[in-house]
């Protein structure tokens, strides 16, 4: 092993107007071809996608882009919002993704999101299918049963980073690479106060899509749903139930993976996402 290797990923900031205010959004990208926008999980940031971003095969056909949502990673809160409680909503999340794609001038990108990113992908399929070439939801469902009280995530007598990471640690499959597990949890230990909790407002309260996904037309925009067998938050059953109500949606249960497939075990995830990305390419040729 020698030092000096520089990864082909490069990161920049783009100024994006979201709900009337300019947000300075950090994004990383690599590759050329079909734009593929990747959405991180609640309470973390776009570093979760770093393995996909350096995949030599995928980046030959895709311009892979991963951005930090406002309040996450290197995207600060908008100037006017410091000191206020952060709450992600279906409307604000949808607006953020669309504004980011517009700011970069992306032509009908593919969007792949995980967890809250998977949920919002369903909303994009409901409301904006024509704007996207394909949509991929990881650990996605129209709804799932809560399994803890989110008030524990942001209170002064509990270390936010420690409790956020400890809670989600159980969502990682047990026998993945130790370094990848630790890196996945590190993202949770670094989140700003109340940000994970604010993301879960969308997940738990505002973003219940039950009764709305039946109108998704996969002929306008193909929809792929993939969920790890060890995800007990968005369970395989949650995803299969959601997919069963969407004619033409493709659902896959991923073995030996949990709630963070792209970061907790990148090699195992690759086995499942490679055929999906190839299918998207094949559909472009029809």
């Amino acid at each position, binding site marked *: 092993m020698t030092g000096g290797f520089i990864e082909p990923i490069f990161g920049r900031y783009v100024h994006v107007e979201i709900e009337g205010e300019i947000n300075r959004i950090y994004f990383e990208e690599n590759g050329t071809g079909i734009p593929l926008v990747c959405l991180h999980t609640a309470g973390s940031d776009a570093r979760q996608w770093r393995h996909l971003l350096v995949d030599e095969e995928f980046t030959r056909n895709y311009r892979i882009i991963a951005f930090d949502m406002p309040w996450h990673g290197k995207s600060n809160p908008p100037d006017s919002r410091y000191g206020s409680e952060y709450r992600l909503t279906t409307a604000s999340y949808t607006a953020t993704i669309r504004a980011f794609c517009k700011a970069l001038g992306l032509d009908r990108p593919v969007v792949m999101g995980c967890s809250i990113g998977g949920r919002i992908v369903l909303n994009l399929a409901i409301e904006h299918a024509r704007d996207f070439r394909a949509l991929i939801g990881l650990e996605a469902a129209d709804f799932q049963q809560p399994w803890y009280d989110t008030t524990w995530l942001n209170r002064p007598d509990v270390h936010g980073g420690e409790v956020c990471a400890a809670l989600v640690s159980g*969502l990682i499959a047990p026998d993945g690479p130790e370094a990848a597990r630790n890196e996945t949890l590190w993202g949770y230990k670094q989140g700003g106060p109340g940000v994970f909790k604010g993301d879960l407002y969308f997940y738990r309260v505002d973003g219940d899509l039950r009764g709305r996904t039946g109108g998704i037309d996969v002929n306008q925009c193909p929809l792929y749903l993939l969920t790890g067998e*060890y995800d007990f938050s968005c369970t395989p059953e949650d995803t299969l139930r959601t997919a069963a109500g969407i004619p033409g*949606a493709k659902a896959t249960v991923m073995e030996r993976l949990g709630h963070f497939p792209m970061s907790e075990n990148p090699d195992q995830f690759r086995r499942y996402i490679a055929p999906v990305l190839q299918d998207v390419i094949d559909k472009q040729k029809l």
Partner: protein
Amino acid sequence: MTTERGGGSSDAPIPHSPDAVIAAFEAIPALLARDATLTARGRWLDVDCLLGPSTQPFHITIRAGQIVDMTRAPVLMRSWRFAYRATPAALAAYWQSRPPAGWHDLLALTKRGEATLEGEIHPFMTHLQYFKGLLALPRRTGLGGAS
């Protein structure tokens, strides 16, 4: 909808003997004493709690992350701040080196109704990773075929 799903884990717990589960739980203090990293994770923790198989829980006294006393319940008029109790079947599954999906985490077990978390849970939440590690220690002893 088209669906793909491979083989993978069973949703059923593994075969076990309730007595073996209790015996495995009783080995936790000795396992913790040999784990300096986990003990250090709990260095700020002092708590009296009730943990273990639902059929035979234990009063456990933790001081600075170390178990200084563990006594089978019930103990007359002994109080505890919080209790985490799981069915023997749940613990046997949780202690596998590769637990079946849905049986692999303390809160997965509470979600599926195989464990209960009760009482004043502040010390549990401030030291959640510690308690996950503590209650997973019998994975090292090979219960139920674990390696």
